[in-house]
């Protein structure tokens, strides 16, 4: 019953997406907009099919219907309800179903959002592209990755239960769906990018219209990655949160491209530049999500995430190839003809800063991709195995990370078009001193090490610079009567908060990785040991036996606080024993406890692993700031009118030496700018509700 229901749902979605593609293509080829508009109906059908299939799968899981092979392999009667529900995405076929469901949701939302422009060929092309992607994923589910495959032979009385590592923490309910909301979300901007290239209409605002979709997907991907790090920290027992694991890298690569895109699209919006580059970034982001899906599911690179034993690897790789070839081919065909006129006036400008930003992010992505793929390359050419591990990635990405921190400080203070170093110096004097004071304070406090000190100093600099922007923006909003809160919402201000989150995370990373220390203490019951400034008291061992979990727990007190219960646990029956850590967190540092060795004889000593890492909690706090900033950025600011001036007006300059923020590129005589009221430098002109003083006309040359 569940199998039949599920199969019908999958087939409905597959048929609807294929039919949708055919009908829209026909409508476009014959210029019959009415046909093209029917894409809406097919999108709705795809969503319906996906919902039916999901309901069928969850029903099968909750009722422990072991006639489905997937349920038999990933669920058991003793699995708690939460992990039964999340079991849908704890293995390969179900995770594709989740992908399909979220994709169907996004397509339906897109079609709804642009329903008034449904007849526009560009929207029709975008819908077509999304339906092609949907057809691929539902096609996978109809064949090689069938989640509703029935068991061959007799129906087992009980199932195997989910992977033991997936039963330890409730985060399994959040991390995959949120991550997928991020990954899958990039399909929509990708579809519009392809549609723009095909129709040749990239001078219009479609990319900007979908920017909010990209921000939405980016926010979820960011949260998904942070949650993954948190989960890894809580569950895996090694005390770390980012291992540069190939699958972690695979999720990080699209994030890097999407972040680069979110910045460079601002240049497109303001100056109309970098249009083709932005399209390339969007296409690259989506391609990398497919590549990531392939790496996770093909077993090509061994990883703690790997869903092994699947046949869909070659299909995913083929799809990646098709996506890449289509995107790159379209850019090669159209790219040069569609390039924007105009250019960058000066590197010392916000455009220049965004260009450097993109360069750094692309370099970052290159390093991560190279490091991930190099072992395969080396083995293919030399036949030997080599490991490219965390030390490589840390060493290579540290300079890029520091450069990005520096850029985060300078960028928001740079005006558009061009500026002088004196302007920059005025604006950044205070933040720079903050950074210097941070370094001095750290050195005085006993912190040693060039890398971390530079990171802390740059962190202080960047934090102060971004806070400065927020303060200016809030002040400007307040003065113009719109309310202080207005100065804190909107794209630019949300962006400043996101930057603050990144700074906090960067500082936390620098502290935790440079000053973390792992040691072991061997204690009998009642004994106390001292480790890295903390008192570890071992009280005794207890045995836990619940239907879901059998464990030997060590009762430990840290500095008298507790009890903390690191353990060796077994989830379900006949499964591997895994170490489950316990963590004592404070704002200063985390004490991470694992049971390394149980006593050989009764009442013998137990060996407890103690890892002390400073500022780990700041990582998760920074993650919260990222979420907050993304939410703030989504609030619509006062829309900037096309005729609003490009940057804040500056005092009248009679000599025309071009040292004003809104100088132009021609050598023509410059008019004198008169101020109608005092200049307030706002965070982003026009965004915070500041009224602009009237200006004399400037020669055409600035948009």
């Amino acid at each position, binding site marked *: 019953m569940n199998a039949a229901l599920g199969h019908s749902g999958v087939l409905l979605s597959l048929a609807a997406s294929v039919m949708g593609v055919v009908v829209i293509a026909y409508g476009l080829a014959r210029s019959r907009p009415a046909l093209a508009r029917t894409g809406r109906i097919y999108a709705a059908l795809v969503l319906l099919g996906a919902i039916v299939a999901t309901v069928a799968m969850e029903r099968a899981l909750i009722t422990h219907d072991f006639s489905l092979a997937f349920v038999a392999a990933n669920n058991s009667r003793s699995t708690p309800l939460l992990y039964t529900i999340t079991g849908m995405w704890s293995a390969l076929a179900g995770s594709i179903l989740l992908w399909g469901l979220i994709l169907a949701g996004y397509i339906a939302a897109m079609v709804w959002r642009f329903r008034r422009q449904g007849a526009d060929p560009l929207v029709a092309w975008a819908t077509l592209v999304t339906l092609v992607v949907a057809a691929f994923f539902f096609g996978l589910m109809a064949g090689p990755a069938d989640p509703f495959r029935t068991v061959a032979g007799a129906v087992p009385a009980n199932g195997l239960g989910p992977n033991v590592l997936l039963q330890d923490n409730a985060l399994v309910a959040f991390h995959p769906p949120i991550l997928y909301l991020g990954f899958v979300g990039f399909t929509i901007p990708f579809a519009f990018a392809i549609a723009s290239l095909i129709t040749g209409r990239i001078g219009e605002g*479609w990319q900007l219209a979908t920017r909010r979709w990209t921000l939405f997907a980016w926010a979820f991907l960011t949260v998904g990655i942070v949650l993954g790090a948190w989960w890894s920290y809580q569950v895996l*027992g090694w005390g770390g949160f980012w291992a540069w694991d190939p699958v972690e890298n695979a999720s990080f690569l699209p994030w890097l491209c999407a972040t680069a895109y979110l910045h460079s699209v601002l240049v497109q919006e303001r100056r109309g530049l970098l249009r083709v580059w932005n399209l390339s970034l969007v296409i690259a982001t989506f391609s990398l999500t497919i590549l990531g899906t392939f790496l996770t599911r093909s077993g090509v690179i061994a990883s703690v995430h790997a869903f092994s034993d699947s046949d869909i690897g070659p299909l995913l790789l083929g799809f990646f190839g098709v996506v890449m070839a289509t995107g790159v081919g379209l850019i090669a065909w159209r790219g040069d003809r569609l390039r924007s006129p105009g250019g960058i006036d000066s590197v010392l400008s916000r455009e220049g800063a965004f260009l450097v930003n993109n360069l750094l992010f692309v370099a970052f992505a290159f390093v991560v991709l190279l490091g991930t793929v190099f072992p395969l390359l080396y083995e293919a050419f030399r036949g030997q195995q080599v*490991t490219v591990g*965390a030390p490589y990635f840390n060493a*290579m990405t540290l300079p890029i990370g520091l450069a990005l921190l520096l850029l985060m400080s300078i960028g928001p203070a740079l005006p558009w078009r061009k500026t002088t170093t004196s302007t920059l110096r005025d604006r950044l004097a205070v933040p720079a001193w903050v950074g210097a004071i941070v*370094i001095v304070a750290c050195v005085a406090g006993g912190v040693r090490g060039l890398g971390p000190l530079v990171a802390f100093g740059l962190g202080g600099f960047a934090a102060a610079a971004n806070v400065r922007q927020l303060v200016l923006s809030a002040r400007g909003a307040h003065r113009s009567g719109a309310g202080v809160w207005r100065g804190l919402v909107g794209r630019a201000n949300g962006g400043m908060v996101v930057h603050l989150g990144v700074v906090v995370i960067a500082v936390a990373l620098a502290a935790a990785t440079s000053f973390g220390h*792992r040691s072991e203490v061997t204690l009998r019951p009642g004994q106390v040991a001292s480790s890295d400034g903390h008192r570890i008291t071992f009280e005794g061992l207890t045995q836990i036996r619940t239907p879901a979990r059998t464990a030997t727990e060590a009762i430990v007190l840290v500095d008298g606080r507790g009890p903390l219960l690191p353990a060796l646990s077994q989830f379900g029956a006949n499964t591997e024993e895994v170490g489950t850590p316990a963590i004592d967190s404070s704002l200063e540092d985390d004490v991470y406890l694992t049971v390394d060795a149980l006593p050989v004889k009764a009442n013998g000593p137990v060996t407890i692993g103690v890892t002390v890492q400073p500022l780990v909690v700041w990582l998760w706090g920074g993650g919260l700031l990222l979420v907050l900033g993304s939410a703030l950025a989504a609030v619509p600011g006062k829309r900037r009118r096309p005729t609003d001036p490009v940057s804040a007006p500056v005092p009248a300059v009679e000599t025309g030496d071009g040292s004003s923020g809104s100088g132009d590129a021609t050598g023509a005589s410059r008019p004198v700018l008169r101020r109608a009221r005092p200049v307030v430098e706002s965070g982003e002109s026009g965004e915070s509700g500041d009224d602009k003083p009237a200006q004399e006309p400037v020669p055409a040359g600035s948009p």
Partner: protein
Amino acid sequence: MLVVVVVVALGVGASGGGPPLTVAQRVDAIDALVRCPSCDGISVADSSASTAVAIRHVVTTRVRQGQSASQIDTFLVSRYGPSILLRPPVQGWTVWVWVLPPVALVVALAGLVTVLWRRRRHRAPAPVSAEDRALVADALAGRARAVAGPTAAVPAP
């Protein structure tokens, strides 16, 4: 002034060499660069797997005997192969993984600079007609509706 303060502070901070490393610290430093053979990508220092414990034990023994980090690494490589080290060696063909990113960065930077330079030189300023000036004055004076053009067809974001 600021620069002086920062440089001095960093100089003090970076030079804190501290007392010579203890055996435990040396062992930790070596362990952090050795891969745990039965885990996925984490170091021997971070893992409590049996293979990691065994390697840590051997490393500790050898450090106590006075062997250097490279001697210990060589021993481990003689058992597990070069993939036991987390950091690819900077010699032989693996040097490419270290060299390619900086080279690529320099090439990209040079390419960017070249493209910008050329575009700046080849881009002639657009001539401004009286009509254009009147248009702009119109728009600024009354914040009139934006001129007809591609930017007007944008659907509301």
